[in-house]
């Protein structure tokens, strides 16, 4: 099926974008990327299967209403039968609107390619990662918002042709007053490796060793809810049921007991390593590898062992 993929201009080289384009390619038809502002760098998405990039250069920053109109215009123009998003904050505000506008069923948080033998259905995460559901779409156009780290991007070589188009996005009624970006950190939902710590670290002054470990691994840092609530770490690092849900390849948790609400945010991780001084901590039941020991001793030792490994490989 002919498929549109919406990708933000800042994400042309993001792994999540490669995944979304690969996913679209695997749906079997022509893949067209749609974007706005500036398509510099978007031609490289051809390597993952995009034939064409449609860009509306007249609109740099777009709100959810404008993006909805823009993608709907591209969908009508191309006759696309599927629209794929990476399940990020933009997708969460635009895909539902687009579903209503195009009368197209939305699969939110897909974790696999669809089953198309009978109809069109797709597996999604539900109950905060504690279960999966298979959702069928009954409409002729399908919208899929794909969770990061669900499929492996496939570089098949090639470049996409960039074409301008008029997305008829209209004017924005939302005024952006200020933007705050924390410097230098890897966005948590996209990180493949995550190092996280909890109250067991006893205070914000002890986070240096967590950051050292994360730096050696090239990992993002995260924390448990109590740590964010008492202000030791910023809220955007809080993973768990009421924080960010992540599904990295490796999740290392130190000094976190593993309450069910925390597990709900991390149980999609491929491999979980738990470091805790309490051998009875519930987190060990969800872990692949466990170290019973004092985080203050184990974390620096693990950092040293990783340094040694990195130097030798």
């Amino acid at each position: 099926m002919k498929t549109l993929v919406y990708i933000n201009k800042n994400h042309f080289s993001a792994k999540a974008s490669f995944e979304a384009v690969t996913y679209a390619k695997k749906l079997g038809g022509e893949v067209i990327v749609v974007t706005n502002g500036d398509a510099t760098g978007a031609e490289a998405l051809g390597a993952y299967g995009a034939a064409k990039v449609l860009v509306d250069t007249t609109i740099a920053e777009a709100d959810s209403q404008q993006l909805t109109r823009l993608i709907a215009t591209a969908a009508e123009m191309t006759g696309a039968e599927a629209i794929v998003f990476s399940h990020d904050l933009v997708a969460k505000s635009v895909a539902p609107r687009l579903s209503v506008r195009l009368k197209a069923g939305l699969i939110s948080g897909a974790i696999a390619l669809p089953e198309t033998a009978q109809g069109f259905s797709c597996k999604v995460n539900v109950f905060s990662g504690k279960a999966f559901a298979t959702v069928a779409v009954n409409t002729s156009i399908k919208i899929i918002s794909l969770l990061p780290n669900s499929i492996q991007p496939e570089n098949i070589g090639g470049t996409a042709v960039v074409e301008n188009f008029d997305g008829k996005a209209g004017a924005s009624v939302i005024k952006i007053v200020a933007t705050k970006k924390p410097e230098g950190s890897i966005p948590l939902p996209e990180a493949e490796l995550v190092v996280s710590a909890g109250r067991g670290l006893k205070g914000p002054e002890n986070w240096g060793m967590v950051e050292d470990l994360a730096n050696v691994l090239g990992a993002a840092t995260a924390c448990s809810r109590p740590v964010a609530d008492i202000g030791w770490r910023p809220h955007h690092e809080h993973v768990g049921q009421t924080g960010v849900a992540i599904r990295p390849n490796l999740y290392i948790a130190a000094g976190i007991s593993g309450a069910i609400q925390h597990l709900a945010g991390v149980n999609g991780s491929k491999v979980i390593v738990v470091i805790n001084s309490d051998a009875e901590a519930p987190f060990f039941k969800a872990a692949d590898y466990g170290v019973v020991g004092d985080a203050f001793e184990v974390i620096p030792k693990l950092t040293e062992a990783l340094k040694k490994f990195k130097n030798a490989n």
Partner: protein
Amino acid sequence: MNILVCISKSPDTTSKISFTDGNTKFDENGVQYIVNPYDEWYALVRALELKETIGGNVTIIAVGPAADESIIRKALAIGADKAVRIDAEPTDAYFVAAQIAAYAKENNFDLILTGKETINYNGSQVGGMIAEHLELPYVSLASKLDVAGTTVTLEQEIVGGLQVVEVSTPVVISCAKGMAEQRIPNMRGIMAARTKPLDVVPVVALELYTNYQTYSLPEAKKACTLIDASNMDQLVELLHNEAKVI
């Protein structure tokens, strides 16, 4: 300020999740339902704070069967003025959003608030869908909400950071952590909730876009491999050769 807060029921966060009827239905046996935490802690409580500071009315709306009235009464006990229940079994986000939008179209609200997602379906869909039905602006994942006259100032999460935005009412907002603190209903609130108006509105017929066919549980984890705290080289070796994640 006329505020509509959309609430949904969800199983208590400690509930054991299982399915019945050939894995086509959530097994409600022994499950305690609560108001979805994002709807209650952030959307409803912030709506009440705004009402207390600038005046107005807070209406809560839920799509669900009569059995859901216990969680609707709980939201009234926290302080909402009135409640509306659309009498239908919610099937998917599109269905719920269309029902709420149909009600909101006939009643003028300045703010329509939802939680950022439910903890059972995690779709983050209802707010955006209501906004599109009503052709209103939508600010998703807001962590701060202030109102001055008809100007609404919000702080929202964006990819890799935060932004502050301004928009005029009416607007649809999905509410996330940071917006307010949980409130525990007091006895006076609970008593008052019993007599507050709870209107039951008939369902609007519509075509279903999606349906949930079957459910499954993740495979049980194999037992955790314990590694001696003094042997981190072994952990690194296992992560590299066995787990193949580094």
